[in-house]
Each structure stands twice: as structure tokens, then as C-alpha cells.
């Protein structure tokens, strides 16, 4: 096509799908794919990880979580290690499974770690509504949900990485639709293509992005039309709006971004785990040589981190990017060859 370009994806599932398919090897050198802050576990701050671990160590508390969070190393230890030392940590497939867990353990307090972007937040919102309606007394939520568009804006504002457009997350957009991404075209004159997860989807999206670049257009297009409508999922959006409100959030790699996270609004704030367990977490810090932050911002690729494959491997991870199933470093380690 004769166009050179750098595109970023902001979805861990895209990171893995692209790495697993070996797509990058098929692309000409002039087209570069960069991973951004698309892994919700990876962008969880060290302090939030430490808080979750502290909860797991509390007697009478069961921490319920998606599997991905379990091996992330906090300042001192991980949830998995807390479990090995006697803490209760349960891996759940669905947030709705936390209801039966709470009912089966009436003398314990169950805390569900609500991690995920806009694909997952509606599910937790619906779960909270049901928990309240059913009057379950021993279940609360540590809300760590984050929102993709504000993080993209924060990243672009930093001007660290030169980009020509975005591969937009297919399932986040199944919920949000395309409107929340119009700022890319309006404020930054950058195109975005909402993309599915098969290798063919990504190739088609790249074709669409390169075509836009060649024609000097900046539109938000939908490649993943079989699953994404421009207006998104109205019911999911309504449920999110009823239960959550935007609040600032602390992103690993990006710092505190206003209105980039979610918090429980009334009448649901009683289900906030931080209210039920006001633990004081001090001394949180990332491993000094860990460069997850720069990987998450697309400033360096995983293999440019000096710890990659040496001090930091999936079996002994230093940071979340190497241990999360959607982390850039894990994807590169498992699926890409040493250049």
C-alpha cells in the first residue's frame, strides 16, 4: 500500500490474539503494532493489589476474584501466596458466582475484586443490583474498574509515542458503541477501527486504518460489525449508569487520571469493600527496575525491558505485565520469538 504507520491496540485480548497469530511477522516493516494499556489487571496500581492482599489476610474474609489477579506480585506478596499462608482466595468465572459463595459461607465476609474495563463493569453493576435486591449481608465489592477512553486521552496528551491510529477494543465497544471514541478524530485527528479478535478481523482493521491514513481521513469505523452497533448496548450502559459513577483512578504507568475509574453510587455505596474494610495500606511500591509502566504506555516493547526473560518470567514475574494472561510481556514471552 506504500503507507508507513504505527497503530496501537488497547485491549489485552487483542495483544494476545495478535501475538498468537504471528501477525506482526506478516506485516511490512513500515507498519508497526504497539500495545497500550489494555490489560485491566496490569493497570491496577500496586496499592490496590496490596489492599486486596491485605483483605485476603484478614480473618473471616474470603476474597473472590477473576483468575488473572491471583499471581500478580504486590509490594510484599500475591493473593496466591496469601492463600498459601492460610488466607481464603476463591477464583470465580462470573461475578454472579459470588452470591452462592456468600450464601455458602454465612459466617465469612466475601469481597469480590471488580477488575475490568467497560466490558466487565456492566456485569458487576447487575450483580450489585441483585445482591441489594436479595439482601445478601456478607458480600461487598472492591471496585477497581477503569475506563478506556480517558486513559487513551491521557496517553496521547503525554505525546511520548508517535501514533497514526488505534485498533479499538471489540467487546468494550459492544458495550460503549463508537461515540466515546469520537474524541480521537475530533481532538487528535486520529482514526480508530473497532476490531474483532480473529486474526482476519485484525488484518481487515489494519487495511481500513491504512486506507484512512493514505486518504488523510480520521474516522471511527466499525470492522466488528457482527457484534458492535454504533450506539452500543443500551441496557448495559443503563445498568452501569444506575450503579456506578465516574471517579478518579490510579493507573499503573499513567498515574491518577480524573474520571477514569468507577465508584458505587447511592443506594449501592454500602456494598463498597473499602467502606466495610477501611484498611490503612502504607509502603506500597513497585519493584524499582520494573518497567511495566513504560510497556503499558507503549514507550518500550516488552523485550526492551532489561528484566525480560531474565529476572522476570511468567513463573517468577516481577510485574503484572508478565503474569497476567493478557499482559504484553507474557504474550511476547509465550508467542513471539527472540528477534
Amino acid at each position, binding site marked *: 500500500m506504500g503507507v508507513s504507520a504505527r497503530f496501537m491496540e488497547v*485491549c*489485552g*485480548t487483542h495483544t494476545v490474539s495478535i501475538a498468537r497469530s504471528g501477525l506482526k511477522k506478516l506485516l511490512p516493516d513500515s507498519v508497526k503494532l504497539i500495545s497500550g494499556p489494555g*490489560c*485491566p*489487571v496490569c493497570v491496577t496500581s500496586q496499592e490496590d493489589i496490596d489492599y486486596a492482599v491485605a483483605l485476603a489476610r484478614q480473618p473471616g474474609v474470603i476474597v473472590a476474584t*477473576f483468575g*488473572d489477579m491471583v499471581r500478580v506480585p504486590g509490594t510484599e506478596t500475591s493473593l496466591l501466596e496469601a492463600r498459601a499462608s492460610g488466607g481464603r482466595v476463591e477464583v470465580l*468465572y*462470573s*461475578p*454472579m*458466582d459470588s452470591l452462592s459463595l456468600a450464601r455458602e459461607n454465612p459466617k465469612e465476609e466475601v469481597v469480590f475484586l471488580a477488575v*475490568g*474495563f467497560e*466490558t*466487565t463493569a*456492566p*456485569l458487576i453493576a*447487575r450483580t450489585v443490583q441483585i445482591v441489594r435486591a436479595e439482601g445478601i449481608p456478607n458480600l461487598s465489592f472492591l471496585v477497581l474498574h477503569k475506563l478506556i477512553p480517558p486513559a487513551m486521552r491521557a496517553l496521547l496528551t503525554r505525546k511520548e509515542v508517535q501514533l497514526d491510529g488505534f485498533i479499538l*477494543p*471489540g*467487546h*468494550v465497544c*459492544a*458495550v460503549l458503541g463508537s461515540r466515546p471514541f469520537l474524541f480521537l478524530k475530533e481532538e487528535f485527528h486520529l482514526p480508530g477501527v473497532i476490531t*474483532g*479478535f480473529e486474526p*482476519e*478481523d485484525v*488484518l*481487515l482493521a489494519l*487495511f481500513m486504518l491504512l486506507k484512512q491514513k493514505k486518504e488523510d481521513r480520521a474516522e471511527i469505523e466499525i*470492522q466488528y*460489525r*457482527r*457484534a*458492535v452497533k454504533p450506539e452500543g*448496548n443500551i*441496557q*448495559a450502559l443503563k*445498568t452501569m449508569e444506575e450503579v456506578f459513577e465516574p471517579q478518579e483512578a490510579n493507573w499503573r504507568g499513567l498515574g491518577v487520571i480524573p474520571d477514569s475509574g468507577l465508584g458505587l453510587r447511592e443506594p449501592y455505596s454500602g456494598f463498597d469493600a473499602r467502606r466495610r474494610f477501611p484498611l490503612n495500606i502504607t509502603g506500597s511500591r513497585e519493584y524499582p527496575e520494573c518497567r511495566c509502566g513504560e510497556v503499558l504506555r507503549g514507550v518500550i516493547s516488552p523485550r526492551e525491558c532489561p528484566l525480560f526473560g531474565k529476572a522476570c518470567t511468567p513463573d517468577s514475574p516481577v510485574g503484572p505485565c508478565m503474569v497476567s*494472561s*493478557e499482559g504484553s510481556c507474557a504474550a511476547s514471552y509465550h508467542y513471539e520469538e527472540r528477534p
Partner: protein
Amino acid sequence: MCLGIPAKVVEIKEQEALVEVAGLKQKIRLDFVPEVKVGDYVIVHAGFGISILEESEAQETLKLLKEADVIP
């Protein structure tokens, strides 16, 4: 985590459906896909349907892929 799997709806009972993926059956919630019908394919995420797959759009994508020589 965004790994939404397309699953075929085989049975609907109020707010829940039984879906099938690769021979395995799973129960999902229909809160976000209330208009789903038996025989539809839905994207499933953490026990909830989040989107109904539009067959006509799927066919359109396949057509584009064939034209771009991405698939035979």
C-alpha cells in the same frame, strides 16, 4: 479477559439461557441481550451475554475478507 466466546442459544428460561460452545453447555444471564431467540449466537463474557451476533454482518465481513484475499 475480553475473550467473549460466541455461543449458540439452545434454551431460554426467563433471565437465563442455556448456550452451547463446542459441545459444552453453559448457563448465561440475558440481562443485556433481552431480545435473544433460540438459535441465535451470542458473545458470552463471564456468564453474561453481551451481544447478539448479526449473521448478515458476519456474512458481509466474510465477503470483505474474500475480496481482500485474506481468506480463500
